[in-house]
């Protein structure tokens, strides 16, 4: 018999390989991408070719004649089974298939079903949709005042507690206008020794997980199972049940492993459509997007950030005003949460008494934007850390010293008024500066090759308030099974959660089995997003394991063992049930305390249960004859509390930083009249192994999150925060020019060099 020997502890802090490592290296791990069901049909989508238009007609005649086509579905068929087929986490604005109007190029208009995907694809090309084109708006700043209105009426969803305040309004593109006021910024600006104002822009980019969006639905007409590559199975169940008017327990959502997510596979993507299609045909239906179609599904907000600071003669920032426009595209998705939750950190991790923030979520006629590894934070850090560097340079101060002078320390209020605790901005800044030898003499290059270095630090509040629930079963042989809805999309959550259970129960983490999201079995979890799982689900898991442990201790007492006896769990069960039988079930849940920001001034005593911090420092060289940049060294430092699995944490940090390096240097969705023109890996360049910095170091600072599970907190996004501004700051350090919009391409650098020489290149 397999002996499970009790061990003392030390499961948290071990760099064990991922529990599923063997199935990943053998190619046998389960993804929805590779899943198929008997009698399954594949749906291929007909997508809008105009950015804004009224649908005059949909001609399916030629497509229906393609041999093998099973059915062609439009919104007319959808409304027969779902009378109000609109979904979304913030607004119920997105139709399952376009109804009367289309709002962006690529919006799904019709679905063609066939057993053979090639047949469905060919037939989809033969569907002819006639549009009356309407005026469109694309720019986020223009959208605020434009007469062109993307949606005539806005319908708030009212699902999440932090978005209860959204209003149903008409004739505006502003989905949310978040305002924060602290102190008296007007007075501080009037009295300032120096005033600095800059505007920074970020471009529209996207997640492109290598497993593209994919969902399968199967139904007998009265209950339904959805197998989906989703980061939020509980939300999918809630939303599908709402759309169908069914109780939640008739919708089962199953999620195996994800081939990447990064915030894209959140809320609802294809699930409502496959659910509707499977109900219409009463056969399993799969939709598996192509790489190109991902460009029409969800993106990261382009943004414009106007930032203005008042600074006194000693280099202390006395006031900051931030105005941020978020380009949400045609459907709000989770943009309003980004606008608010990220918006309130727009002044950066600095101790500033007088603050004014306006953060606007805008609708435009572009593909929808949502969460992407940072929930808006990288866009903000890009602006405030570029701005911070510009101020330091203008004042003749060392950029690290200027930051040190102004950094927000524990015990001081953040812009919302919440007193920060365990927010390691200073520690991360100092460690990054130390690792890059900031105070040592620096070789500035020679001839046409110039060298420079830059540093940046950013922070984020965890999204609050959100709920996680977990169950831990202990079997009669002492092995444990964890039921938790956290989705492992590569971040290693299965392994980290198993380590938490193992730490509590004093068993090796390798012996904990983690049951993947299946809403028939795993309890509610808000979603796998925003670096929330380690903290929120981690606490629920820890409580569930502690509950199981308490029940085991009660069982020991019941069978007559003295307190503190070290009898193996297996023997406890044998003594009680007279054989290897029985189960101990432990449960736990967690929702953090939270005070919503006041709607008039954005103030809150407790806006988040924890803060995450990331700092980056780089050394670069630039060829001034070509604008080509090489990153010689990159240092990433984060405050993750206590690392549960140091090896996985390091990979998360460097992976996030390299992803952000793509958003900083090469990635940009190009548009013409709302049509994305580079929707493939041939034209949209993500980082490959050749794009790595010559040397890369990713470390955590020594930290303990006082309210986290064993001192831990989130890590998935922190590595992205500082990358873009650190590079822009290094560019200025090297060649004296400032890039204010992403991405920082060789062409942009070279143009800036020529412009600085008064010899600008022609467009």
């Amino acid at each position, binding site marked *: 018999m397999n002996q499970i020997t009790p061990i003392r502890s030390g499961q948290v802090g071990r760099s064990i*390989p991922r529990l599923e490592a063997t199935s990943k*290296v053998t190619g046998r791990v389960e993804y929805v991408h590779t899943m198929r069901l008997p009698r399954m049909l594949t749906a291929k989508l007909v997508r809008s070719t105009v950015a804004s238009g009224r649908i005059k007609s949909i001609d399916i005649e030629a497509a229906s004649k393609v041999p093998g086509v099973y059915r062609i579905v439009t919104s007319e068929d959808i409304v027969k089974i779902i009378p109000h087929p609109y979904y979304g986490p913030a607004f119920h604005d997105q139709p399952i298939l376009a109804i009367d109007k289309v709002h962006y190029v690529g919006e799904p208009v019709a679905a063609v079903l066939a057993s053979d995907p090639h047949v469905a694809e060919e037939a989809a090309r033969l569907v002819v949709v006639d549009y009356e084109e309407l005026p469109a708006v694309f720019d986020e700043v223009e959208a605020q005042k434009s007469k062109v209105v993307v949606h005539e009426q806005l319908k708030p969803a009212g699902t999440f507690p932090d978005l209860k305040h959204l209003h149903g309004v008409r004739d505006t593109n502003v989905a949310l206008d978040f305002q924060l006021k602290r102190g008296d910024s007007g007075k501080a600006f009037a009295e300032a020794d120096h005033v600095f104002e800059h505007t920074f822009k970020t471009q529209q980019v996207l997640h492109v*997980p*290598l497993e*593209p969006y994919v969902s399968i639905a199967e139904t007998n007409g009265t209950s339904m199972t959805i197998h989906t590559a989703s980061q939020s199975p509980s939300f999918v169940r809630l939303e599908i049940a709402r759309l169908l008017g069914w109780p939640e327990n008739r919708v089962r959502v199953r999620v195996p492993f994800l081939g990447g997510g990064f915030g894209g596979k959140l809320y609802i993507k294809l699930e409502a459509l496959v659910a509707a299609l499977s109900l219409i045909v009463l056969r399993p239906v799969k939709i598996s997007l192509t790489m190109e179609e991902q460009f029409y599904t969800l993106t990261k907000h382009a943004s414009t950030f106007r930032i203005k600071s008042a600074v006194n003669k000693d280099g202390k920032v006395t006031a900051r005003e931030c105005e941020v426009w978020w380009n949400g595209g045609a459907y709000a998705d989770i943009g309003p949460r980004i606008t608010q939750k990220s918006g309130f950190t727009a002044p950066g991790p600095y101790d500033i008494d007088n603050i004014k923030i306006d953060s606007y979520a805008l609708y435009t006629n572009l593909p929808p934007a949502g969460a992407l590894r940072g929930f808006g934070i990288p866009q903000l850090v890009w602006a405030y850390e570029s701005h911070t560097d510009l101020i330091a340079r203008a004042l003749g101060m060392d950029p690290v010293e200027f930051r040190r002078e102004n950094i927000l320390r524990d015990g001081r209020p953040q812009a919302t008024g919440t007193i920060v605790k365990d927010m390691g901005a200073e520690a991360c800044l100092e460690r990054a500066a130390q690792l890059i030898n900031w105070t040592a003499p620096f070789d500035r290059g020679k001839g046409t090759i110039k060298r420079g270095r830059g540093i940046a630090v950013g922070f984020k509040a965890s999204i609050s308030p959100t709920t996680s629930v977990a169950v831990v079963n202990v079997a009669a042989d002492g092995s444990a099974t964890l039921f938790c809805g956290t989705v492992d999309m590569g971040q290693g959550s299965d392994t980290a959660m198993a380590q938490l259970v193992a730490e509590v129960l004093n068993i090796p983490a390798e012996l904990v089995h983690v049951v993947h999201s299946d809403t028939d079995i795993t309890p509610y979890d808000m979603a796998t997003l925003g670096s929330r799982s380690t903290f929120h689900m981690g606490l629920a898991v820890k409580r569930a394991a502690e509950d199981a442990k308490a029940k085991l201790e009660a069982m020991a007492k019941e069978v007559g063992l003295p307190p503190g006896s070290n009898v193996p769990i297996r023997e406890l069960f044998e003594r009680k049930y007279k054989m290897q039988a029985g189960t101990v079930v432990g449960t736990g849940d967690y929702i953090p305390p939270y005070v919503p920001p006041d709607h008039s001034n954005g103030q809150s005593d407790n806006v988040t249960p924890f803060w995450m911090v990331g700092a980056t420092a780089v050394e670069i060289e630039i060829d001034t004859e070509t604008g080509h940049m090489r990153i010689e060294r990159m240092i990433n430092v984060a405050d993750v509390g206590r690392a549960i699995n140091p090896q996985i944490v390091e990979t998360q940090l460097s992976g996030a930083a390299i*992803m952000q390096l793509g958003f900083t240097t090469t990635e940009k969705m190009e548009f013409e009249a709302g049509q994305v023109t580079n929707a493939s890996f041939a034209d949209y360049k993500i980082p490959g192994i050749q794009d*790595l910095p010559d040397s890369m170091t990713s470390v955590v600072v020594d930290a303990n999150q006082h309210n986290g599970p064993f001192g831990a907190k989130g890590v998935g996004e922190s590595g992205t925060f500082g990358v873009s501004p650190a590079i822009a700051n290094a560019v200025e350090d090297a060649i004296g020019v400032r890039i204010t919009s992403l991405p920082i391409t060789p062409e942009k650098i070279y143009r800036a060099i020529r412009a600085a020489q008064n010899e600008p290149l022609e467009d």
Partner: protein
Amino acid sequence: MGPMKKTISFQLNGRPVTVDVAPHHTLVELLQNEFDLFGARESCAQGLCGCCTAVVNGEAVSGCLYLASFVDGATVETVEGLSDGAKLDPVQEAFIEAGAFQCGFCTPGFILMTKQLLDAHPAPDDDQIRHYLAGNLCRCAAYPEIVKAVKLAASKRQKVAA
């Protein structure tokens, strides 16, 4: 068998197989539809990401672009052929020990290309590693760990050979 189909025979992971293929089907579709082998996966569909890598007659190919009928008479190896379930290939072991993946979707392609690299260069330097793996993309960006894994695999293979 439809009129368009063609019967082909080839060696798949060391075993002879015979199957009917449609002319427009790719190697990935053949492996998935006829043999339930899912280690080669289509992602970018342009031969740029390496997720669909399979080895035909000893050369790595992009299975999303390589037509199924072209493997008639060939030897085909996939990631599933590297281990019998009991013992992993040294390259697979190295990827686990170095933590060289996150979501795992691209991993079979990286492992097969690493084997190709080590067959040609048993002790590769950084430039050779980057050159051989330039056609494989990892959106989780576990590249630093992948470089470590390749070096670890090289030393494991040399130990086996010694």
